[in-house]
């Protein structure tokens, strides 16, 4: 589904990603872990098409198409979803209007009929239950005045509405208490399908107790320095990232 080859990217002239190689198949959950500043969020943003990051080298194919050629909105319509680490507030734009536009833009892109207001509200009701999001929130402006936990729930709710092929969860656990974490993880698990894939970006293991990864990668100084199965999570938790650094001879 996603093939990343020798991806290099920089921000304001500073190279952050220094040759990422990664292949993700449908049905898989990949965890990308690593200490702060290792480039995890950069990778998530580069894949989503944030123009603040400049790709200097490498290629990425998404379902056989050149991902880097696409603008951010086309990537989204092709089925790539990013759950933001820090979701932004958009005052005055109601959540309903925002989501309806997003859903229908995607449907138009795939030459499907736009959802009527009634159908849309019906789908919304179903998905709301999935992440146990308060109805009040969807009546407010996008993320405006939401608590940290509400914002994260709202991200997963949007994911449920948009049904992406590839979801990238960027530090979705940060700012969540244990109950919210469980709800969010549960939502992600319910949305899992054999034809979809998930990338979980995190530097704690706790989210991975709930969303169990098939593959775990450690990102360090812009490169994947170790890949293994889910047992790596426990090892990291036990030994910390210093262990990786030592292994690398630092």
């Amino acid at each position, binding site marked *: 589904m996603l093939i990343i080859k020798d991806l290099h990217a920089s921000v304001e002239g500073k190279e952050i990603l220094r040759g990422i190689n990664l292949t993700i198949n449908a049905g898989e959950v990949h965890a990308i872990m690593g200490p702060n500043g290792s480039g995890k969020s950069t990778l998530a943003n580069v894949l989503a098409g944030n123009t603040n990051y400049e790709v200097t080298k490498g290629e990425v194919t998404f379902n056989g198409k050149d991902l880097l050629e696409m*603008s951010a909105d086309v990537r*989204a319509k092709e089925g790539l979803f990013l759950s933001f680490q820090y979701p932004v507030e958009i005052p005055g734009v109601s959540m309903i209007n*925002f989501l309806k536009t*997003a859903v229908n833009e995607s449907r138009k892109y795939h030459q499907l009929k736009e959802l009527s207001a009634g159908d849309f509200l019906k789908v919304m009701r179903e998905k709301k239950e999935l992440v146990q999001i308060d109805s009040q929130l969807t009546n407010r402006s996008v993320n405006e005045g939401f608590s940290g936990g509400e914002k994260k729930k709202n991200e997963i709710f949007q994911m449920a509405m948009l049904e992406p092929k590839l979801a990238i969860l960027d530090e979705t656990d940060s700012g969540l208490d244990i109950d919210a974490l469980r709800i969010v993880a549960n939502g992600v698990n319910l949305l899992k399908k054999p034809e979809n894939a998930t990338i979980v970006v995190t530097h704690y293991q706790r989210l991975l107790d709930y969303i169990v990864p098939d593959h775990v990668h450690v990102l360090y100084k812009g490169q994947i320095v170790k890949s293994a199965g889910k047992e790596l999570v426990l090892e990291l938790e036990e030994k910390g990232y210093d262990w990786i650094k030592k292994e690398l001879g630092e």
Partner: protein
Amino acid sequence: MDNQNTLINEVTDRDYRFGFVSDIATDSIPKGLSEEVVRIISAKKEEPEFMLEFRLKAYRKWLTMKMPDWAQLTIPEIDYQDIIYYAAPRQQPKYESLDEVDPELLSTFAKLGIPLEEQKMLAGVAVDAVMDSVSVKTTFKENLAELGIIFCSFSEAVKHHPDLVQKYLGMVVPPNDNFYAALNCAVFSDGSFVYIPKGVRCPMELSTYFRINAKNTGQFERTLIIADSDSYVSYLEGCTAPMRDENQLHAAVVEIIALDRAEVKYSTVQNWYPGNKEGVGGIYNFVTKRGLCKGEYSKIYWNQVETGSAITWKYPSCILAGDNSVAEFNSVALTNNYQQADTGTKMIHLGKNTKSTIVSKGISAGHSSNSYRGLVRVAAKAENARNYSQCDSLLLGDHCGAHTFPYIEVGNQNSVVEHEATTSKIGEDQIFYCNQRGISTQDAIGMIVNGYAREVINKLPMEFAVEAQKLLQISLEGSVG
């Protein structure tokens, strides 16, 4: 940052959507302004003596006045002798049915999406369409007449209701008020007249579409709305203008008078030709709009969405003379490319317990300049007056400017005046967030701007609100891409 700017430049680069010129035979008088021209205009319109006197007095006053230069505007020199002051569509007689109307004119309205008759009738809106200067068709007059409501062109009002015109014309905006108002008083060609009798609630939105059409013709509209005691009316004014290279002067005057417990809502969507991307051409919109809350408990609301004109100089104001009267000014002003706007309001509190609210939302893009200028004056005898002002500015890109000039004068101890102001920028992160959900940058900008302006747009009558939302989006298309 550069990315966003490129983006913004692209959306703002979009061409004006409603630019076209219709080819209609026009009966004009030669260029220039003199006492003779004023007399010709009055004579052509077969006006009574008092109108000629009104015009001449204004003209003589105008000769002694100068163009105001205090606004945050750069106005090229205007040669007032190079303007045609009167033009009327050649076919003077009024028509019984639409079949008799010049098809070119009808197609012009169609292009603008103005359904002059059936659609509007179904929508319950009476339209007094002003093409250049003379009213072409007035609908619904009879239905309204049954209620005693007068809704007609200004010329007709002068002919059929001279007493009302004589009593109220110039009561709120006198001929010596300012340079442009004096000019308007001297040469105004036509406009709309509304009178709502005592206790009558006007059952439909009254609307007028103005459109500048004859080449080189300044448009000097005159609107007079009188709401008698305990009456209510909602009036809509909307306009688009054809693509033009040379600048056109537009100096309209709108007067509103609300008597005891009367309520008047005046909504405007203004979309005159703003000039091209390089700032060439476009309308000069120098308008004087003022309402007088004459009676106790009277209410006047100004709601406006301004996206057009090369230069806008406009301050729809209210004089709160009656005790317990209420006034509101709700405005969205959008400037793009090289547009300049200096707009705002004046709230003059004279009566006791008077209340005014100002909500101004400025949006600047491209190389434009957008200023809010507002005055809140509370007279000594206006006890317990209240004002709340909120002035927000939204910037797109970093070549545009936003300015706020609030003036507050309070003459007593028990009045409360509040002023809040914010300036913000559309964030790159907001746009990316929308992009990531599959919403294109252009749609994202439209959505964010409409969200920002929602508070004001919600005050507009339904059909206008939809139009205004589209207009904001269209006006910014090309400013981000």
